[in-house]
């Protein structure tokens, strides 16, 4: 059970003078149950890539396999694929439209043709998974706070019981606590259900804290594909391609240059704290 991208190419406006090579020879294996961070500067191909994973875009070269089947084969059921690979777009709350929260979340499973009772069970479970209290279920989604609206929108995708959840910058525009709450909830969801999560993010700190694997895109190609510790070792190269490392990485590098024998590969506050205390002999 996995997603495989095999030599995937994607060219926009192929027959015109304005052709843009948005993906170049992308090869990836995404096994079940991983928590993956996808990073890259604006225009690096992240969004194009995730739109290939649920078949919204068709590669101009190469193949994509979901659970061993070519998703662009003639008899492949795309509708089922889209329920299995759930994509939450940026600012998903702009897509809320129903008169109450519960109906909005029911929309996805209802369109899958499930019986009404099952639709409602799925919606209920999804709203619980994103941590929304019962009292909000029959309110208009437009009366909720920004963070709550976003949870409802994520629940709308979870209600289809996907095996893979792709979130395109789920924390953009949220306050710091709102960011932590959404990401903590997603991490818990992943622990409890074993769902694969792909997090597209511009926050290196968030990526370092939550994911086990980082894929770095640059100009349509995969630049790095490794653990956070390994990827952020290349912080100079990351800066060249419009990214950065988490601030703690710079702290550790600077401490090392100043003669403190710390390991420089900490990527989270907790790792940095432990390493500094170790070197100071406080533990």
């Amino acid at each position, binding site marked *: 059970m996995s997603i495989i991208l095999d030599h995937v190419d994607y060219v926009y406006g192929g027959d015109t003078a304005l052709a843009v090579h948005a993906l170049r020879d992308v090869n990836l294996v995404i096994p079940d149950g991983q928590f993956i961070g996808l990073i890259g500067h604006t225009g690096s191909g992240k969004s194009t890539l995730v739109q290939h994973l649920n078949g919204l875009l068709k590669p101009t070269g190469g193949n994509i396999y979901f659970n061993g089947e070519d998703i662009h084969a003639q008899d492949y059921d795309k509708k089922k694929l889209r329920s299995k690979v759930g994509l939450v777009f940026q600012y998903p709350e702009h897509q809320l439209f129903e008169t109450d929260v519960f109906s909005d979340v029911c929309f996805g499973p209802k369109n899958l043709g499930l019986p009404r009772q099952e639709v409602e069970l799925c919606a209920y479970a999804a709203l619980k998974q994103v941590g929304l209290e019962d009292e909000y279920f029959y309110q208009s989604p437009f009366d909720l706070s920004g963070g709550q609206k976003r949870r409802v929108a994520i629940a709308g995708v979870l209600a289809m019981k996907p095996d893979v959840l792709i979130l395109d910058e789920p924390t953009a525009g949220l306050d710091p*606590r*709102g960011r932590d709450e959404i990401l903590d909830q997603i991490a818990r969801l992943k622990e409890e259900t074993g769902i694969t999560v792909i997090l597209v993010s511009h926050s290196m700190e968030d990526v370092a804290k939550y994911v086990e694997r980082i894929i770095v895109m640059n100009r349509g190609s995969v630049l790095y594909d490794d653990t956070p510790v390994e990827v952020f070792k290349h912080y100079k190269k990351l800066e060249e391609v419009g990214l950065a490392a988490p*601030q703690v990485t710079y702290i550790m590098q600077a401490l090392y240059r100043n003669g*403190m024998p710390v390991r420089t590969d900490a990527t989270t506050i907790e790792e940095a704290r432990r390493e500094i205390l170790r070197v100071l002999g406080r533990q």
Partner: protein
Amino acid sequence: MGIIKTDKLVFEYIRRDEEGNVEGITRAVDEVDLDIAQGDFVAILGHNGSGKSTLAKHINAILYPTEGTVWVDGMDTQDEKQLWDIRQEAGMVFQNPDNQIIGQVVEEDVGFGPENMGVPTEEIWQRVEESLKAVGMYEFRKYSPNKLSGGQKQRVSIAGVIAMHPKCIILDEPTAMLDPNGRREVIRAVRALNDVEGITIVLITHYMEEIIHADKVFVMDQGRIAMQGTPREIFSQVEKLKGLRLDVPQVTLLAYELQKSGVALPDGILTVEELVKELSAVYHRG
């Protein structure tokens, strides 16, 4: 009186249900007194729904006070005759660059504001050139905006505001949609406008690292000003900020965690350099 002053500013809006019946009144800004001096770099923090954007929209007369008064450079924002002068003096930049750019070519977009103000053609071109140079986008003047990155587009939006020769720019989460490089570019441009041109800056953001150089920070909660002070004074209060759904820069948080583990460090460390200096001292003392 400073360039921006508010006196007991209150803003209320009426919530209505689908039939238009009044459901209640929400007080989004609650008796806020601000006094911002010309040339200051001021940051406004606050969780979603704390009232900071509503407050900001009063400064260039998009919203009017329910009670109290707002003055921009001595002009009362409720005085309709001065509306255009106020909007010219206090320019606003929003979160999404794509909603703010209208021109087909970068230089046309930047010229839109002064053109609407009736500035003579020759001067418009002069202003466009100066403004694009001020944000480091002059070499892109002939580009189509849709060929630019998010950070570049946002700098074009800022240039469009500067071309109107404002005394003050209010930026409402200008970096929320940008990648790390875009964020750096925009913040660098904003700081340069403040340092070099002396333009008063009001920056609203959820990224704590962006405001460590501000002259003053206001923290909003439930429509009121809950905290105010220098970045160092504000970021020394880690627990209080967390209680207000906010955070501190990573370097400040690491210093705070180390303090809690018994390492002797001063409060409110803001930069990597400060922390490295203090920790090296602790290490070499042994």
